[in-house]
Structures are given as C-alpha cells and as structure tokens.
C-alpha cells in the first residue's frame, strides 16, 4: 500500500470517526461508525488480512452495528439537544485529547527502525492471512482463548436474556 492510497483512506477513516462522535443524531453516528468499520475492513485488505476483513464486515458491520441501529429504532431515540453547560467540558476534553494525540503520535510518524518484525516491504507468503493460516494458529497456540470465548458468549447470552426479557418466570 502506498502513501497515495493510505493517506486518503486514513483521512476518510478519521473523518467518519469524527462523524461518530460529533453527529447529534444517534442514527447518523451509527452510520458513520458503519462506514468507519467498512473502511477499516478495506485497510485490513491492504494489510493482507482478508479473512479478518470479511469478518469485520460480517460481525461488526453486519451484526453488531445493526443491533445498535435496531435498538436506536426500537427505543425511537431523537436527536440530542445541545447543552450549553457541556461546552466547557467538550472543549477541555478535545484539547486534552489533541495534546495527548500530538504527544503520542510524535514517535510514530517516522520509519519503522527499532520496531521488531520483518517490516512492511519484502515478500508476503501466499499463506499469510488465509483461513488456513489463521486456523492453524487459532487451534494450536490460541486454543484455550478460543474455548474461553464460548464461555464468554454463553455468559453474554445468558445475561442479555436475564436483563432484557420481558417476563422472567
């Protein structure tokens, strides 16, 4: 991926990410988030993570965000009323965040020297990012976390039902 594609793509990602937090209507925020996630999936493709990109769309854009939209519509939320007394906090938080981002970004905007790894240039093996390669690693080194996710999801399902079901018998 060259700078020529990276810069516009990242600019779009940042713009839509800002859209998430600046839009007054939750639906618009959710849509901006959907576009951000979609663009991130595109970024993943450029980083040779095809399966991750597909899952990003299926899981995040296709399920998680739709759930958000579903709840927003179910509760029929209206746009926020802007609140004057929040403005100071908003300005303070934004300034602090920008300063932090400035400080945090400084070491990164440069070459990869000193970062462990093979580097971004150089050949990528054919197997990199394929379902087979991911599965290989997932079911050997990460087999325990994989099994744990099943318990995690069970807890989430159980909890969601307990909390949101209309009548608990």
């Amino acid at each position, binding site marked *: 991926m060259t700078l020529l594609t990276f810069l516009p793509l990242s600019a779009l990602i940042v713009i839509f990410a800002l859209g998430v937090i600046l839009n007054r209507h939750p639906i618009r925020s959710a849509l901006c988030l959907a576009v951000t996630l979609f663009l991130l999936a595109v970024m993943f493709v450029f980083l040779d993570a095809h399966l991750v990109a597909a899952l990003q769309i*299926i899981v995040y854009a296709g399920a998680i965000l*739709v759930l958000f939209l579903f709840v927003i519509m179910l509760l029929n939320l209206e746009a926020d009323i802007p609140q004057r007394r929040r403005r100071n906090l908003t300005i303070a938080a934004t300034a602090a965040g920008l300063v932090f981002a400035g400080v945090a970004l400084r070491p990164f905007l440069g070459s990869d020297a000193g970062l462990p790894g093979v580097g971004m240039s150089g050949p990528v093996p054919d197997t990199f990012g394929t379902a087979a390669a991911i599965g290989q690693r997932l079911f050997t080194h990460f087999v325990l976390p994989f099994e744990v996710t099943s318990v995690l999801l069970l807890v989430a399902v159980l909890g969601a039902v307990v909390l949101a079901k209309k009548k608990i018998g």
Partner: protein
Amino acid sequence: MLIEIVIILVKILAVLGMVMPLAGALGWIERKGSALIHDRIGANRASIYGFAGAGLVNTLVADPLKFATKEDVIPRGADRLLHTIAPCINLFPVLVAFAVLPFGDVLLVGDREINLQIAPLGIGVMYVLAMMSLGVYGVVLGGWASNNRWSLLGGIRGSAQMISYELPMGLAIIAMILTYGTLDLQEMARAQGELIWGWLPAWGIFYQPVAFLILLVAGIAESKRIPFDLPESESELISGYFTEYSGIKHLMFFMTDFVEVIIVSGLVSTLFFGGWQVPYLYSSGFEFPWGASIALPNIAIVLLQIVSFTLKIVFFCWFQIMIRWTIPRFRYDQLMHLGWLGLLPIGFVNIVATAVAILATQSA
C-alpha cells in the same frame, strides 16, 4: 495489465448483463407464475399483437421507464440524505456479491486462461456472507428515514429478521466449508465435478441435504420474500420499509428483492448443485460412466457450463416464486421460532455431524 482490466470489465458486464435483465424478467415471471399457480389468467394486458410473451418486453423496458419518469417524493420530516441513499445501500452490496460466484471453469483464449469468476477471492463464500449482511442497512435506513410509523416497523422487523437468519445461513455455509475444505467458491464448484460410486455427480446436495434446506430457507428469509415478508407485509404495513418510496428509488428496492432471489439461487446452485458443473462433462468433453465419450472444444464446454449454471439459477428462482405463491406468511413469533429454535439448533447439529463424519472418514 490493460488486457486484464479489459477482461475483468467484460466479465463484470457479462454478469450484470445476465443478472439485471433476469431480475427484471422475474417481475413478469412472478406475475405469470402466480396466475399459473392460482389457475387463473394473469398479466395478460400487456401483449403486442396478441403475443402475451411480450409482457416480458413490457417489464424490461416500459416498467423501468415508467418508474424513472415518476415523481420522486420525499415525505415531510424525513431525513433527506438517508432517504436518498437507502435504496442504493440496499442494492449495491447484493450486486457486488456476484463478484465471487463462478459462472464457468476456465476459458481458453489463445494461450490465456480466463477464470470465469470476476474476483477469485480466497475467502469467496465469506465475502458473499459479508455482502449479504450489509443488505440490512438499506432496509433499516429506508424504514427509519421515511418518517413513517409503518416504515419504521418494517425496518425494525427487517433488521431483526435478517440478523436472526444470518446465523443459520452462516451455519449452513460452515458445514459446506467443512465438506469441501475450502472457502473459495470456484474450488467448491470444481470439487463437485467428481463422481460418487462412479455415476452420481458429487454435488453438495448429496452430502449435505440438511445444510441445503437450511440455506434455502434462510436465504428466502434474507431476501424478505413470502413466507417471510414481514418487513413488507402489504396487508398490515402497506409496503413496510419502502412505503414512502416512489420513482427510481422504489424501482431500486423492487430490483433488490429480485437480485436477492438470484444471488440466493446462485449460492444454492454453487454450493449444492455443482455450480457450473454439467454431469459427466470434463475439461476435454463428456465422459459418461458407461464408457461413451464425446470430445468437445473448450469454447463449447464453457458455453455448456454457463448455460448449466444459468439454468440452475433460473430453476431456483422459479422454485422461490412457487414457494411465494404457495405458502402463506408466517406470524412474527413463528418466524423467530423457526429461526432460533428450528434452523439454528439443526444447523449446529449438522456441523457437529459433518465434523464427526469427516474425522471418521479421514481416520478410516
């Protein structure tokens, strides 16, 4: 480089050139089919010199023209931007999903081998799933942006329904991934060229009949057609999420429904009915199990494959139309019941059974 771009463009045009007219024609076939199934005379007004088949011309040319020239109404209080882009968001992902459906094997032009698939993605089937999961946005947004209670209800129903049925759909597809050992749809189609017991084509349906039923039902539910048309349900929600749409935007919603029918047919044919495979047709020609063989040139083979794939798609489109005019609409609780308590557990059991069977055959 240039020639490759041209080839890809030709492939895209060829696929769109098949899908779009077919989607248009389905509108007419549906009306005619309904008349046939109801045993009544139907859709017989549009004829040219007494030839009723001309209704097809009418659907393909006059209908779009009519839609295009109608006034585009945006209701008061609606979100104008979202109201406008919702139909595009609805149509676009379904159309691009066709990129990974292989419609033939390899076409030889000179010494250039052309893979008859627009985008040979390694993750092919996941890509289809991803695009189909994006389709829900159009429904949700169209429903919400219309500033209409019935539209909103349709949108809410649509989102819940589509999320719910994506799960069994994914489970059915996972079973097929296990069966073929690949995510690539072209590889899956090729794998179905073999024979079981020397005579039966090794189509997915013979290995995975349960997954086929799950995928078909979930696919119909995903395309929101009767008996799962609760997001639209004309009798109670007028037209559900696209009640407030007119003109070309209405046409786009309308088209999406039929394009979804086609993609579901395409997916079902590719996964379970050999895709472009013609029984006993190999890269050199027919080789029948009883020993006879007919040698064929590459171009004839490719044409046969494309025709085979098209016929399979058309058959499943017809099959979905038949279902539409045969089965009444489910109630909402029945819909959820079927998805979560019917298809989902069956899908899980099917995956486990598949895995066990694969393990048994491998270790044997």
